[in-house]
């Protein structure tokens, strides 16, 4: 099995395009016409242009633009310290009412901790002078806030009409099969949670799959093992070995 470099892991397996192109047929950007040959993935995703966004949010006008579904999460981490405190202050400076900072602040809490426990929601309520019940009422309205812990990789498969016409049900089944999970549950190794998503707004590239902060486009069932390996290959290997060993012993 090919070991992925740290860089490739960081980019969610995107680097596979250059080195292991055959492993991931389509890393989420190449068109079926093959006309993308002259563009690199960085060209299309704009990664060089974007660079690394700072934890303090950068310019206040752009401070609530950070992805809040990440592989790295720490449910015990403090919420409003250091650069995160700076970001909170920037967010607050952009609205005439404190309450308007609620969605960005919940997003930041999830970015840090991975999900929003009732205790986390209370902390957010305190810092924004809102009642915990109000915050919970808002948080539960929106699907992107995880009310329960999710796997390291949250895999959201669009099964809405445009993807559905092009075989999304089979892609969803492949993800469930390959991760050995039921819809919405965390896999035994803690790595994966697979959920069905509503339209992700990339209907020209079916089936669209969002894994944490990035989109995989034109995904077919055959692509699924390679995609999983590209995002969690290094992490999967020892676990698989451990599982096999454990199974034999039991």
């Amino acid at each position, binding site marked *: 099995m090919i070991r992925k470099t740290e860089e490739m892991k960081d980019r969610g397996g995107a680097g596979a395009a250059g080195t292991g192109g055959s492993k991931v047929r389509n890393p989420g950007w190449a068109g079926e016409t093959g006309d993308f040959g002259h563009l690199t993935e960085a060209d299309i*995703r704009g990664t060089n242009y*974007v660079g690394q966004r700072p934890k303090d949010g950068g*310019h*206040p006008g752009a401070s609530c633009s950070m992805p809040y579904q990440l592989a790295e999460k720490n449910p015990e981490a403090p919420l409003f310290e250091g650069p995160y405190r700076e970001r909170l202050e920037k967010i607050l400076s952009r609205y005439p009412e404190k309450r308007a900072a609620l969605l960005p602040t919940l997003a930041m809490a999830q970015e840090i901790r991975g999900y929003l426990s009732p205790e986390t929601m209370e902390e957010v309520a305190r810092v924004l002078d809102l009642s915990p019940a109000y915050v919970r009422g808002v948080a539960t309205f929106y699907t992107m806030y995880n009310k329960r812990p999710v796997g390291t990789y949250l895999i959201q498969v669009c099964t*809405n*009409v445009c993807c559905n016409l092009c075989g999304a049900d089979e892609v969803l089944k492949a993800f469930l099969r390959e991760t050995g999970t039921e819809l919405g549950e965390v896999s035994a190794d803690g790595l994966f949670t697979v959920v069905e998503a509503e339209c992700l707004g990339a209907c*020209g590239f079916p089936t669209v799959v969002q894994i944490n902060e990035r989109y995989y486009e034109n995904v077919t069932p055959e692509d699924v093992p390679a995609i999983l390996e590209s995002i969690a290959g290094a992490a999967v290997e020892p676990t698989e070995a451990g599982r096999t060993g454990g199974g034999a012993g039991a």
Partner: protein
Amino acid sequence: MAYPYRHEKETRILSEYFGDPEARTLAGWRERGGYQALEKALGMDRDAVIEEVKNSGLRGRGGAGFPTGVKWSFMPKDDGKPHYLLVNSDESEPGAFKDRELIRWTPHQLIEGALIGAYAIRAQHVYIYMRGEFFEPAQIMARAIEEAYAAGLAGKNILGSGVDIDITLHLGAGAYICGEETALMNSLEGRRGQPRIKPPFPAAVGAFGMPTTINNVETLCSVPHIIKNGAEWYRSFGTEKSPGTKLFNVSGHVVRRGNYELPLGFNLKELIYDVCGGIRDGRKLKAVIPGGSSVPILHADEIDIPLDYESVAKAGSMLGTASVIVMHDGTCILKQVRRIVEFYAHESCGQCTPCREGTEWLARILRRIEAGAGTEEDLDLLLDVGKNMTGTTICVLSDSAAAPVASSIRKFREEYLAHIRHGKCTAAAAA
């Protein structure tokens, strides 16, 4: 794929730089003529900018097609209150994938259009409300906003004009309904994304209780071109009542899915068979949804129509976001309609009873028929439930769920009956 694939029939104005990574940067955008329109607008009287956009006939690209200049003219002039411009970048309508491309290839096109719009309506703050899933476009937009501030294009005294306009990017958190303008305002304010009763209209009482205008991404991206080249130039594209170009986002069973920029009034049949290369796998066309999942479905023999707001309405559907969903003859219409209805059931905000209950019941009845346990009376029941969901709620999500059900029963009744009689889909299998 639309880019770099270009069809000779396209008229690329907004999408000219799709596939050109240099156009993304501020320097690259300026080299391509960017921000000249903003400079021109800042030298014009605010009302003259509104007048120019009014004369261009530009209509809102978010679905409703309301004239943009007229919308801007509803904003009060000297009320001394803060005004807001909200950019609706919540693109969530199944079938729509145009705004994501506009943002990730040409973020400065949107910023320029938003600044011109904000200047015209006397807004001091622009909020770009982007759906939460769009992390990649959001990062690009964040970078572009930082570039704009650093270059004095945003913030205090933009381009030395004495005008102050701030820009803030705001991410949603996964709720289709937040694309509805009053729900978007509630969501921006840190509330549940539930639509508000109108009136009052946003131009009177909008975000944070202040006069507000909400425009779609594509609408605002059109504005710099209108200001730069003039209303007459813009009117040289499209039709009398639907001027200009439009991004047609085509998905489903066509050979070349993608975004195609074409003048409004372009023929739907030509779009599918010529521009998009026809139907996949040598199959035949069965049905087309011309404007996103919420509009009535068209039968294969109803597609020889011009794609402009009036003509599609005349054909019994709506242009909506011009998100064309194409289905070939191997498609089970019932299954796809059921999936669409399940989407609306999931996304109903729960505020109005006909929608909250109706969407769920439609989904349940459709699942029953699909599972082979339906009766012929179920079709009347579906139509009856749908009728009670139409025009009875605060926003049109309810109507949107009912529309595909009613239109598909009207146009594909035999297929529904076959499901009921045989307990399974015969249409998809027979094709």
